[in-house]
């Protein structure tokens, strides 16, 4: 981590990311190896504040790995990732600061099965953000209302459908007021009907100005809602740009084929 970053972290929060034309996420020449296998091969991309960026591509193209690297869940072997002013990837320093600004939602929801919906959401509020129980409960009610599940506050995850669990997972992340949210194939485990309710929540978030990066197979959704689309292939950013332009005129054969197959 550079000296400048540390100063930023030690002092006030990084410059507000709401300002337009500010890259909230900067990925530069990132390389990631699993043993001998190079899964990310010189990946670079920028995500601007308030944007929704969809990362698409075939299985094994490295898109989920890229997202996990952005959040420090995987370390990188080369290059540089900055997210909300935090340097991520090599070494695990200042994770707490990173966590304060970046939320993440997973394919398998990963709610805590032994805790109620309320406690799933308030756990980090009380432990990390040091909120009082009442404040935390209030915040839980607020975010649950936002995802349309206010009445489920006392339920256990097991009592909810997959789509509801995923919305709770989004609420849990949202409760911490992140500046950026990462979504890792969040609808891949859901049937079409439940997918819709989760996508609706995400669309609301996008409309509310949340900076979002999502790895997804929901092409129609990406095409309709995402500002930017990144097509990954063989561990590289094969093609990227504003959604409309990209879909209207694919530049590479691989991308044309990918969207042509209707995946």
């Amino acid at each position, binding site marked *: 981590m550079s000296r400048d970053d540390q100063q930023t972290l030690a002092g006030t929060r990084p410059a507000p990311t709401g300002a337009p034309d500010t890259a909230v996420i900067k990925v530069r020449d990132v390389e990631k190896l699993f043993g001998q296998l190079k899964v990310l091969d010189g990946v670079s991309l920028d995500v601007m504040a308030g944007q929704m960026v969809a990362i698409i591509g075939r299985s094994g193209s490295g898109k989920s790995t890229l997202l996990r690297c952005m959040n420090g869940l995987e370390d990188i072997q080369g290059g540089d990732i900055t997210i909300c002013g935090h340097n991520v990837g090599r070494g695990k320093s200042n994770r707490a600061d990173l966590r304060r600004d970046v939320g993440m939602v997973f394919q398998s929801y990963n709610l805590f099965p*032994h805790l109620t919906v309320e406690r799933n959401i308030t756990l980090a509020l009380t432990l990390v953000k040091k909120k009082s129980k009442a404040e935390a409960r209030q915040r839980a009610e607020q975010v649950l209302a936002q995802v349309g599940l206010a009445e489920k506050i006392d339920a*256990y995850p097991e009592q909810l459908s997959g789509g509801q669990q995923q919305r709770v*997972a989004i609420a849990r992340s949202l409760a911490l007021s992140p500046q950026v949210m990462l979504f890792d194939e969040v609808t891949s485990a859901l049937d079409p009907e439940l997918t819709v309710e989760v996508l609706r929540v995400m669309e609301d978030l996008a409309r509310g100005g949340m900076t979002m990066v999502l790895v997804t197979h929901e092409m129609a959704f990406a095409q309709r809602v995402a500002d930017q689309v990144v097509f990954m292939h063989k561990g590289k950013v094969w093609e990227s740009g504003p959604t409309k332009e990209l879909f209207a005129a694919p530049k590479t054969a691989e991308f044309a084929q990918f969207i042509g197959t209707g995946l």
Partner: protein
Amino acid sequence: MIQFGSAHVIYIFEAARWTIVLSLIAFFGGAVLGLLLALARVSRLLILRALSAAYIQTIQGTPLLILLFLSYFGLSLLGYRLAPIVAAGLSLTLYVGAFLGEIWRGCIQAVPRTQWEASDCIGLNRFQQYAYVILPQAVRIATPPTVGFMVQVVKNTSLASVIGFVELTRAGQIVNNSTFQPLVVFLLVAAIYFAICYPLSVASRVLERKFNVAR
């Protein structure tokens, strides 16, 4: 030959208290040691993992009987004369700790890796992850094997009789030596062991059910 009578029964029941006391020492001592060992086994520090693994391997490969001999007779040669209850308590703690450590390591690792990731991503530190997310789930997984092992431990306390500690089994031997009524005496002893162990099994089932309802 002395007739088997109520005095003998009382004597055996009083000795049964020591079986319970010894079991409790073994359990609580072993649980503390076991938890430390389990956490060491899944630690990020190689040295802790190696040391705890070596300890567990060593103890698991040693008969409890030998541990008892070592802590009672062996230590006395070195000038540490432990009372039988202390030597038995110490041996059982070392023994139970090793087994619970290994059982609980498995239970901690049985909690999905994604639970670590999810709790990491909301900013919990490692201690908070253990305390609020990982261990509560591991406890559920751990209950049946732990109670099952405890039943074994209650019965294994009978080995303490070889270092002259008068617990249930030793009391049975003593009474039998004067009454020559092995069938009656040892049936009574067996019944008392059963009376101690059975509630444990029942408690385990109740707990399991409770956990299942709660989630």
